[in-house]
């Protein structure tokens, strides 16, 4: 079996998922495929089990916030790797801000557990079916999702910072 390239992957994904492939591009030699969020779990499962494509390794899951793009404010990005074909690809799904639900892939890759917790921790994306979806890096009692682009760069009302040491309140020094 010859090693497969990006084009063959794309053709195979399009053949299997047809209308659910919303967009695709090749960025810096890496295949990017945008899918309907509801179908991402099935698509990754299909890629994982496929004899030739054999996407057997999950590199990373990440979130992105695009506050300006209405109806697709949040993106969940899956970076996958096929060891057999030495090929990496990226699966993206866009979610509207009022429905941040996507199916967990912890049943496919055990390593997705912490990655999904991290994405939840920083962006508030809810992975349905995750066995233990709680914060992983930040304090448990944090009540916001810090990586969202919806905060002013510096909050003047903060009380946990001593401004005198940072030249912000010069009259006190």
């Amino acid at each position, binding site marked *: 079996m010859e090693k497969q390239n990006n084009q063959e992957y794309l053709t195979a994904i399009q053949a299997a998922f047809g209308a659910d492939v919303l967009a695709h591009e090749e960025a810096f030699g890496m295949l990017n495929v945008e899918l309907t969020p509801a179908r991402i779990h099935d698509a990754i499962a299909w890629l994982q089990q496929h004899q030739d494509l054999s996407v057997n390794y999950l590199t990373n899951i990440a979130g992105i916030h695009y506050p300006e793009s209405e109806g697709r404010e949040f993106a969940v990005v899956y970076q996958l790797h096929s060891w057999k074909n030495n090929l990496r690809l990226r699966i993206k799904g866009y979610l509207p801000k009022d429905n941040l639900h996507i199916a967990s892939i912890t049943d496919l890759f055990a390593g997705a557990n912490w990655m999904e917790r991290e994405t939840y921790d920083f962006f508030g994306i809810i992975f349905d079916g995750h066995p233990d979806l709680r914060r992983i*890096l*930040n304090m448990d009692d944090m009540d916001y999702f810090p990586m969202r682009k919806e905060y002013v760069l510096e909050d003047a009302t903060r009380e946990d910072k001593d401004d005198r040491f940072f030249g912000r309140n010069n009259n006190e020094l």
Partner: protein
Amino acid sequence: MGKIEDLETINGEGYQLTTLDKAIALARANSVWPLPFATSCCGIEFMATMGSAYDLSRFGMERMSFTPRQADLLIVAGTISKKLGPVLKRVYEQMAEPKWVLSVGACACSGGIFDTYSVLQGIDRIIPVDVYVPGCPPRPEQIIEGVMNIHELVKKESNRRRYSEEYKHLMDTYQIDIDQHGEAK
């Protein structure tokens, strides 16, 4: 580092008098067992301080204590995130009295460059600090100077300080509950 010659004494023929406070304080100052709580680059500088080139053992600190129960000096070197804050406080509470805290580096002293949502803006927000060592990271010489300043405090501290009302008040400001011996409950 205290020397026995520096001890204030009353000398007579066949006897030498000093106060128990001073004798005990001198002994304590010469055998401060540090607990390094190192989280980042300041910790690397601290390792150099412990190593043979700078040699912290000259100060009676041969033995790093990696259990808080047997440590006298908590050396906090590095960024403490807010999530780590309660852990650090627990370690401090587990140390037996008398105990001292050395805050090494800009991050431990004030949060340093990490003016952000996840970083504790100075460990003195959760535990009392005796000596601050500035720098990002401080050189081993600075850490040694900080340690020597701790020794000065140890030598001057009254044995009764930890039983005093002032000490209880200090601990109250950090919400640390202490018993009549000054130990955290």
